[in-house]
Structure formats: C-alpha cells, structure tokens
C-alpha cells in the first residue's frame, strides 16, 4: 500500500473513533491503540505516541463544550486530579522500573487490569441506577466543597440538578486510576467513568463529560515522555488528530442530545473490549496466547 493510503485510512478511522469517544467519555486511545496495532504497519512506539496525542486532542475538543453545558464539572475535577496526577507520576516511575526489572511484569499487570475492567463491566451490567444515581447521604468533604451542578437533559425535557458523594472512597480509587494511567500512558476514561458514576454518584452524562476533562490532564502529562523519546511523527499524528477533532465535535453534540441509556451500553461495550484486549495482550506477553 502507498504511504498516502495509510495516512488516508488513518484519517477515516480516527474520524469514526472521534464520533464515538465523547459519547462514551473516553479519549479514544483505548480504541485507537488496539485497532492501529492490529491493522497498521507502524511501530508500537509511534502508535502509543499518536494515540495519546489523538486522545488528548479529542478530549480537549469536547471538554469545553461539556463544561459550558454544565456537564463537565470543575468542582468534581479539582479534588480528583490533585490525587490522580501525583499517583500518575508514581505510576510512571514504577512502571519504568517494573519494565526494566521484570520483563514479564507488565503482562501480569495487564491481565490484572483486564480482570478489574471485567468486574466493573459486570457491575455496570447488573447495577440498576447508574444513569441518574440516587444519593441519600452526602459525605462531609463533598458537603464542605459544595460539589454540585446542573444541566439541561433533552431526553427528560428539564434541568437536572445533582450533587456527588463518597469523596473519601473516590479519592483512593482515583489514586489507583492515576497510578495505572501513569504506568501504561493511558487517559483511563474507562476507569474514571465508573468511579465518578458508581462511587461518587455523578449522573452518567456528568461522569462521562467530567472524565473527558480528567483525560485532558492525564494524557497531556503522559505525552511528554513520548515527545522526549521522538515517538511522535507528524505523518501519523496529524491525520489522526484531524480525524479525531472533526469526529469529536460531531460526537460531543450527539452526546448532549443522546439518551443516557445508549451511553451506558456504549461504555459497557468499550469496557468489555478493553478488558478482552488487556487480558489477551497480557497472555500474549507471557507466551500463552497468539498476537492480536
């Protein structure tokens, strides 16, 4: 295949990912990286570098739109990122140490990560009130921080007001998410959404939208390693970013109008996909499964 055909194919694939990603509250890297590794001839270094820039740009393009609508909430983000950034630094350092000290360590961690994702998928599958969680008690810290917000929900035809809770339980969870994000160079939207939704009780749309805000920070911080190692090529990054940017603008508008139930199924599908990919890759790393 001629080089420009790969570039064009990359553009159309990321355009599709861009439409889906904001609806699901993920940056798109979780779809881009495995798909590109499976179907494109680029080295994994360039794919991971491009995946991070693409996911970051997707989140940067859609997060402001969500914030203006009242869906992405800085009051939720502020305490969460204070914990997640510091643990992502630790994760990055320990991840590098694990890779150097134990060549197969990453494979075990990937399998563990896939299993955790699968458990979260099951929780999503069987939990009843995730679209608009009912909060009976607000913890003292959330009360003190006055975490609240509102948005206009077109599917209900009214303004929905909400508060969040359980910040004490959510902060260690975000520490774990930040640690994993730093270790694997991920935005970790798939993990942000369940914690925001199931632990803190944020409505699903608020959880997916605020997750996009968190991804901008996690991915931007992770990109610096790849840039400093030269794992970024204009030839791969530019068509990916252009595709995702155009797609994300379409996706962000669909996300605001779409029914929360459809987002739930999309998040679940992506979670299951990521779980299978992680377990498979982990097993492949241990020599127990063929490459994807």
């Amino acid at each position, binding site marked *: 295949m001629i080089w420009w055909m790969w570039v064009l194919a990359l553009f159309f694939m990321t355009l599709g990912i861009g439409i889906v990603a904001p609806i699901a509250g993920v940056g798109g890297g979780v779809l881009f990286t495995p798909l590109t590794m499976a179907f494109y001839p680029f080295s994994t270094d360039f794919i991971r570098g491009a995946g991070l820039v693409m996911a970051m740009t997707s989140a940067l393009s859609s997060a402001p739109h969500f914030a203006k609508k009242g869906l992405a909430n800085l009051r939720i983000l502020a305490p969460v990122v204070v914990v997640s*950034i510091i643990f992502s630094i630790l994760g990055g350092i320990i991840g590098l140490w694990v890779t150097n000290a134990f060549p197969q360590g990453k494979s075990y961690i990937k399998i563990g990560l896939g299993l955790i994702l699968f458990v979260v998928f099951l929780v999503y599958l069987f939990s009843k009130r995730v679209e608009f969680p009912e909060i009976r008690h607000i913890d003292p810290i959330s009360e003190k921080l006055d975490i609240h917000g509102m948005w206009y929900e077109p599917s209900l035809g009214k303004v929905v007001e909400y508060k969040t809770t359980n910040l004490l339980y959510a902060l260690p969870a975000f520490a774990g998410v930040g640690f994993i994000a730093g270790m694997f160079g991920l935005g970790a939207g798939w993990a942000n959404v369940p914690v925001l939704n199931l632990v803190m009780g944020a409505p699903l749309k608020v959880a997916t939208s605020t997750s996009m805000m968190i991804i901008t920070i996690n991915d931007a911080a992770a990109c*610096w390693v790849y840039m400093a190692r*030269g794992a970024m090529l204009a030839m791969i990054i530019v068509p990916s970013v252009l595709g995702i940017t155009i797609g994300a603008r379409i996706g962000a508008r669909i996300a605001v109008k779409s029914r929360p139930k459809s987002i739930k199924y999309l998040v679940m599908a992506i979670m299951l996909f990521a779980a299978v990919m992680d377990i498979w890759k982990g097993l492949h790393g241990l020599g127990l499964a063929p490459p994807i």
Partner: protein
Amino acid sequence: MEKKGPEREIRVDEMGLAFAKIMTIFTIVGIVLMVLPAIAYFMGINPYVPLTEAHKYWRLSANDFWLNVTGRKVTGYSWIFDHLDKTDCLSMIGVLILMITPLLSILAGVVKAENRTYRILLLIAALEFIASILVKSLVAVTSGAKKVVKK
C-alpha cells in the same frame, strides 16, 4: 452564544467557564499550528524526515527509526527546537501547545475560582502537572541516554 429555552436556567461556575474558554482557544491555536506546517510537510516542503524515509522506517521502534533516519537517537526536545525551520518539526510546536493547554486551563480556573479551597486545589493540581512534566522528561532523557551508552 445565547442559551435557548430551559438551558437559560443553567448556572455554570465562572471557574468552569474560564477553564473551558482557555481550553477552546489554545486547542484551536495548537491544532492550527500543528496542521499548517504539516500541510507543507505533506507537500514535501523542507522536511526534517522526508515522507519516503518515514514510510520506509515507521515499522521500527522510535530509537531505531531515528538511528536509521538521522544516525542518532532522540533524548529530549532538541530534535524539535534545533530544527524549527523544518516543517515536520515546526508542526510539533502545535502538539506542544496542546500538551500545555490543560495546565493553562487549570491556571485560568485558579484565577476565576470562587473560593480559597478551589483556588488552592487547582493551584496544587497545576504544580503537580508541572512536576509531572519535569519528572517524565527527566525519566525519558536519562533512560534514553542509558540506552545509547549500552549500545
């Protein structure tokens, strides 16, 4: 843009709006600065890595790619800043702007925060972000340098 119907009832924090405004502006600036030089690059104008060379070696790891194309490994950001006259390197300036956009957005939130608690929380987040950049750059540079020495 004026809100319509029930959307008028929505109140969004000033800090959230400031965060969104700065993010919108710098994302556009970053994308434009990334795309314009890239158009010239795709037209074959003054590249650092010619398109045919990139195509030939893009299957290799980043280290091997740069060894084959330029004869040396990349450890740090000099590959961009030393070649700003080259269209593909200039395009990376746009990416770098995108990479600092969340930091600038958080700082905008600090300025517009309604109370001291959020101002402090966002300021800590901004400082941690800067620390993260420094640590990760240092890790990339030192580990890359070690690999060069080993070779």
